């Protein structure tokens, strides 16, 4: 079980998942956001399959299937519908420009390494080298939430952060029990639906999906 192949595969997978997160900061079109999220989820379900194979935990196959259906098919589908409805919006003026965003995300990943260092040091899991990457992905998701203006990019940021949490759980514990996992999926789905409703309301109220407009609600 302490297979060097498994260790390398999990590190590689985590890196790809993180890269898809960082792509969000680089691209501007909302369509690219959705694609990045979809491919990230695909890689995440593949990682679940790999972990399930190496740890002989067949429940993980079911989790992988659920994750694939939800995050690679259903949610991206609805995101695209939303995007079509609002026309082709681009993240034109984020609060932090692309170059600075990339530098800052690099620093956030470094920070994740600093924070998770004690955990990695005492752990003897083959997957331990991916843990800082998962933590870094959570930070990147949060960073997207804070700096991007369009409501859809914020939803994607939230979902990416959620993927980071799922990845951390997978690397740290080889997946939580399936019942917990299902609960989390339901949470994500509901959270997504609620946010979708909000976005439609923001659109009808402000005729724009820039969350910026909500500043007007003060006073």
């Amino acid at each position, binding site marked *: 079980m302490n297979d060097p192949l498994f260790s390398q595969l999990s590190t590689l997978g985590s890196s790809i998942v993180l890269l898809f997160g960082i792509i969000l900061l680089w691209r501007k079109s909302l369509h690219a956001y959705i694609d990045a999220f979809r491919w990230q989820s695909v890689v995440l379900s593949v990682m679940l399959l790999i972990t399930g194979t190496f740890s002989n935990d067949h429940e993980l196959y079911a989790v992988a299937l659920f994750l694939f259906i939800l995050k690679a098919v259903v949610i991206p589908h609805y995101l695209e519908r939303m995007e079509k409805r609002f026309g082709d919006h681009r993240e034109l003026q984020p609060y932090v420009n692309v170059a600075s965003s990339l530098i800052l995300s690099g620093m956030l990943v470094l920070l994740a390494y600093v*924070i998770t*260092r004690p955990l990695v040091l005492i752990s003897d899991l083959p997957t331990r080298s991916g843990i800082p990457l998962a933590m870094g992905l959570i930070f990147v998701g949060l960073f997207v939430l*804070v700096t991007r203006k369009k409501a859809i990019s914020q939803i994607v940021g939230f979902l990416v952060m959620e993927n980071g949490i799922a990845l951390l759980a997978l690397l740290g514990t080889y997946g939580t029990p399936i019942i917990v996992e299902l609960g989390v999926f339901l949470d994500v789905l509901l959270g997504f639906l609620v946010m979708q409703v909000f976005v439609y309301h923001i659109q009808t109220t402000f005729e724009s999906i820039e969350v*910026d407009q*909500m*500043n007007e609600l*003060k006073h």
Partner: protein
Amino acid sequence: MMQTLFLIMVSAYCLGALVALSGGRGSLGRGLVALGAVIGAGAGFALAANVILSGTPFTLSVPDLLPLAGGLALRLDPLGAFFLIIIGLGAIPSSIYGAGYSEVYEDGSASLRLLGLALNLFLLTMSLVTFADNVLTFLLMWEGMSLTSYFLVMTESREAGTVRAGIWYLAMTHIGLALLMGGFIVLMNGGSGAFSDLRTSAASLSAASRSLVFLLTFLGFGSKAGIVPLHIWLPMAHPAAPSHVSALMSGVMIKMGIYGILRVALDLLGGGPVWWGGIILGVGSVSALLGVLYALMEHDLKRLLAYHSVENIGIILIGIGAGMIFHTYGMMTLAALGFIGGLYHTINHASFKSLLFLGAGSVLHATHTRNMEELGGLIKNMPWTALFFLIGSAAISALPPLNGFASEWLVFQSLLGGFNLPVPEVALLMPVAVGMLALTSGLAAACFVKAFGITFLALPRSEAAEHAHESPLSMQVGMGILALACIGLGLAPFAVVRLIGGVITGLGGLPDTRAAFTFNLHLQTPGAFGQMSSPLVFLGLLILLGLTPLIMRLLRVNWQLRRGDTWGCGRVGQTARMEYTATSFAEPLRRIFAELYRPSRDVTIDFHPDSKYFVQSIEYRSEITPLFERWLYDPILRLIRFTARQVRKLQAGSLYLYLAYIIIILIILLLAARWF
């Protein structure tokens, strides 16, 4: 037996609250709400009397009801029972009175549902405060009492100023609660919160933490009792509330502060160094004097009474402070005398202050104004209210043979015993307190000459006062009960002192001192230092009254009935505008105490355009400087507002900023967890 009474008490209050919830309108609804309160208070009264007379506490523990910090622990010992009696004494007449008084809200100007609900729950939680036997129960019931009374204050929330008064009350009472929590946390010291455990564990606390507990709880309870300078909410909240609620708050609820001080300082902590008593005595003296001085300048009848509550709380604290000082030096008989004086005045104040507030409520009910300058001559149209108010005024002015005299006399006696103190510096405190108390009593009498004279005597100063009507029977009954209580408590000090002597026996190691008093027709203090007899005074007054016609006959006085102008002074064509007003009556005192009041006066004279020898109108306005508001509370409020404005900058309204706060905090916390 006791169990049954307890259940009757709780269920009657709950039923009253339920009836109120289902509407509580109409004379039947209001009557049923009042009935619940009366039966509940009556059962509590009976239970308390049972505990005091038998000397055995009533215990009930419900640990499962609230499986936290010991659950609900109820135990009614004689001290708690004494205060439960005070609740009964105030609640029964006030509730009867309230049934009639709240008729004015039938037009929808206030929610009768909320009023009845809050009233019953207020009485229930306040009663349970006296039962509390652990910290959790105590604080829960205390907070219940504060919150329900807040809603009672807010009954007339559409009137101007009520909301402001409510906010002040809520703020002050929660500052008090925070102080109390702090005090109890130090007192518990990580151990159990049961009062029986605290009594033993308090001895092992360091002297500094004991004093900290005392200071925190004294201030906390003091904010409820209304000591200066925490009295600020009383003159705001009492006038804003419906009158029977004012009677309950002023007559009964603020006494819970006294209960708390005695419970913690004397019972749980078992007394302390001499400066504890000194602080209580000093704060009491200052409260008494300032309370009456501000009352003198007040022309709003209910605000005037509220300031008198500050004064009387001061008198009660003088007695208790003297008791604490003697207790420190082990002079138990004198200590008992001080405590008895304080507690006696507590129950007396509950009776006459409730009576006066109910009387003021009747005046308000009849004339729709509380401003004394618009009243006058009410005695003709409202003879019963006037009689009851007169009895209350005489009692609060400490005129024998009414009850105020008996208790103030006892407080004086305990202070006069101060020359026995071994330490001269402390012994010197006592005569100073005697002086302040004496001045207070005199000023209080002057103030009630004003309150009664300007309101009920003289000629009516307004249309409303001229067409005043007597209040309905239920309100008269409520006042009548309290007037009888004032007379009864005054005529039987020998019985009351004996009862209170039993109540305080055992608190903080006080021995049974009842044998040191001589209880006959007259009451003799320990050591035969002083004695007095209210019944004999009463008898003397009766004889004097009987002798008067005899002497008049001897002097061949003209018996014919003559009618003259009210306050005519021989003038012809007397009108209401020529009379003494409340302002003019208080003017000499305003000048004497100008240093304190810092009055501002503003006279505008409008002359006739042709000659300045003809005056068309004179406008006179005079206000006193509210010292505590200006120098204590305003700076604090400014500071709070300034800080709030600074903090508000964080709330910029930008969603991204809030999200950024989250990520920054997350990173800081993670880093902190990494390195610490």
